[in-house]
């Protein structure tokens, strides 16, 4: 088969979970809330999707449960850092730990069995990931709701003054992020590699966060980002005879730093700006 075609297909397969997780993170961060707990939410999703699919025989149902569990986990983060104004980075790290931990505890005894009814890895899920990024793009840039979401991420005080319910918007955005992260994890355990193994996300949640940055918080560029990460990951095995694989794996991170720097230097061209209020808790001023 053609090298390019194979690489593209592999990039699509490996990129699908990355894209799902990154899309959710983009929406959450657009509302001004960083969630560093993606890895934990993905692992929870992976376990619940597998367990549900194994018990019922319906992988799609497993993905649904994964979405709910991921969303619920994200809401914990939302409560802590939106309502309780906790530090978002610390809260996200903590959520990640709890998620990874709970998935590991519950997953005992589920190892060593293949999924009875797996999904094919290039399926409607891949396709719907691509569709979803288009939908999120339209939502963000061409809908009233998108303007509201972005305004909450840029200047919550101004949005508040306009009558926007800042907290509600942030809850919804963070919850959506957990939903898609759960599905991303579920994809791993019911389609990409249909079985459950402790710690099976192996750092993909962090790559998704890197893609969020790489994309400049733009859902369409997240597609490009996840394809690039997927392609480079695949190529690190194809090109092993020529380049040290560690250096190939390093490349996307260095590339992201470069793109980020160039883009912020020349604002507005390819890069979007970091959501202004990203990472900062919103305290309603007393008037």
């Amino acid at each position, binding site marked *: 088969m053609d090298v390019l075609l194979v690489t593209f297909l592999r990039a699509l397969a490996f990129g699908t979970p990355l894209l799902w997780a990154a899309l959710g993170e983009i929406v959450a961060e657009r509302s001004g809330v960083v969630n560093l707990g993606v890895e*934990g939410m993905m692992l929870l999703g992976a376990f619940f999707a597998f367990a549900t699919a194994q018990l019922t025989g319906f992988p799609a149902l497993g993905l649904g449960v994964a979405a709910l569990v991921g969303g619920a986990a994200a809401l*914990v983060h939302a*409560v*802590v*850092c939106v309502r*309780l*104004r*906790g*530090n978002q*980075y*610390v*809260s996200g*790290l*903590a*959520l*990640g*730990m*709890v*998620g*990874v*931990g*709970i*998935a*590991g*505890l519950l997953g*005992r005894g589920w190892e060593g069995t293949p999924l009875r009814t797996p999904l094919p890895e290039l399926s409607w899920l891949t396709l719907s990931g691509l569709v979803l990024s288009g939908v999120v793009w339209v939502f963000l840039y061409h809908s009233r709701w998108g303007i509201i979401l972005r305004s909450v991420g840029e200047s919550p005080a101004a949005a508040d003054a306009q009558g926007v319910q800042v907290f509600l918007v942030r809850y919804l955005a963070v919850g959506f992020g957990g939903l898609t992260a759960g599905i991303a994890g579920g994809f791993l355990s019911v389609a990409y590699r249909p079985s459950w193994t*402790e710690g099976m996300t192996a750092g993909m949640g*962090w790559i998704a*966060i*890197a893609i969020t*940055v790489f994309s400049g918080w733009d859902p369409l560029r997240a597609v490009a980002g996840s394809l690039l990460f997927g392609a480079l990951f695949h190529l690190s095995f194809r090109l092993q005879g020529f380049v*040290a694989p*560690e*250096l190939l*794996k*390093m490349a996307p*991170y*260095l590339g*992201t*730093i470069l793109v*980020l*720097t*160039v883009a*912020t*230097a020349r604002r507005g061209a390819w890069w979007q700006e*970091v959501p202004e209020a990203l*990472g900062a*808790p919103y305290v309603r001023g*007393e008037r």
Partner: protein
Amino acid sequence: MRRIGPFLVTPNPSPSWGWSTIVSLLAIAGALVAAGGVFWAYGVAPLVAYRTMAEGTFLDPRALPEVVRRAIPLLLVGSGLVLAFRAQFWNIGAEGQILSGAVAATGVALFSPLPPALLIPGMFVAGFALGALWAAVPALLRLRWGAHEVLTTLLLNYVAAYGVEWLVHGPWKGSSMMGFAYTDLFPEAAWLPLLGTTRMHWPTLALGLGWAIFGSVLLSRTVLGFEIRVQGENPEAARYAGIPATRTVLAVALLSGGAAGLAGVGEVAGIHHRLLSPGQISMGYGYAGILVAWLARGNPLGAIPSAFLLGLVFTSGDVMQVALQMPFRVTDVFNGLLLLFLVGSTPLLQMRIRRVSGAGGEAWTSSS
């Protein structure tokens, strides 16, 4: 302003030390109750679990050095990051800076012509320098082009990790290790001395304590410290006052990165005596250091108790595994819950609670 029973609650953005401690203890108590639920669900009585943990950590004179050993890198990283965070420089790349320090130390230990007596000082100097450089890059990227340091420092962690991976599998792979991915052992002159029969590498501990004191003096007694505080509390005011952001940001980047670099030197020179895969060198101290700095609430000296607290938490995880035969993931759940409660206690922290007697006279204040 709200009134609950006999208490009057008002917001207070800068809580006192006493109140911070009380709130932190309350949060820890809450987390213990929540984690008790997890233990109970796992079939271990919560009180038994906590007694075992206490017996296996601070009540056990032989286990205490292990707590300290875990706290050493956390102290260096944490007290450095306190400075960075005070200047609003969000360095979350300590993990990569630790690895840089470890790489520099290894380079000096294995490949430098230094005489044995100068090896250890040379390793610390080189480790500090490379760690500082690793943090200076994002600082310059921000100052020159405005690239956000949260992202660049985070991404550089991966670059450092793959760099170490490449070194131990490639050019620096040791000839004596049967082909496993390690460098050769350092010469013994490059091993840090240990305290008595413990495994505490005391030079790094001394550096950490010294660093915390130095940071505290720097912040409160020097011009640079004043500038850092102004820059962090009110960048607008700093600009009006003519304080150059270049200087403060670069200074805190160098200081925090350098401190993390020292921690990396301590890990390879005090424990492993060789460079090895990145996950074994740092064990997430760079990320845990963020928590130390955050718990220290802006005071470098505060990093001392908070580093020991986190060292204690990590070691408690060990105890849970050994004494109670719980899976290692229990540690993640426990640590995560603890953090969630600590973070979630922010609103309580930023409250001033006063008791009002009858008509509203002040009886006592819980915070000044």
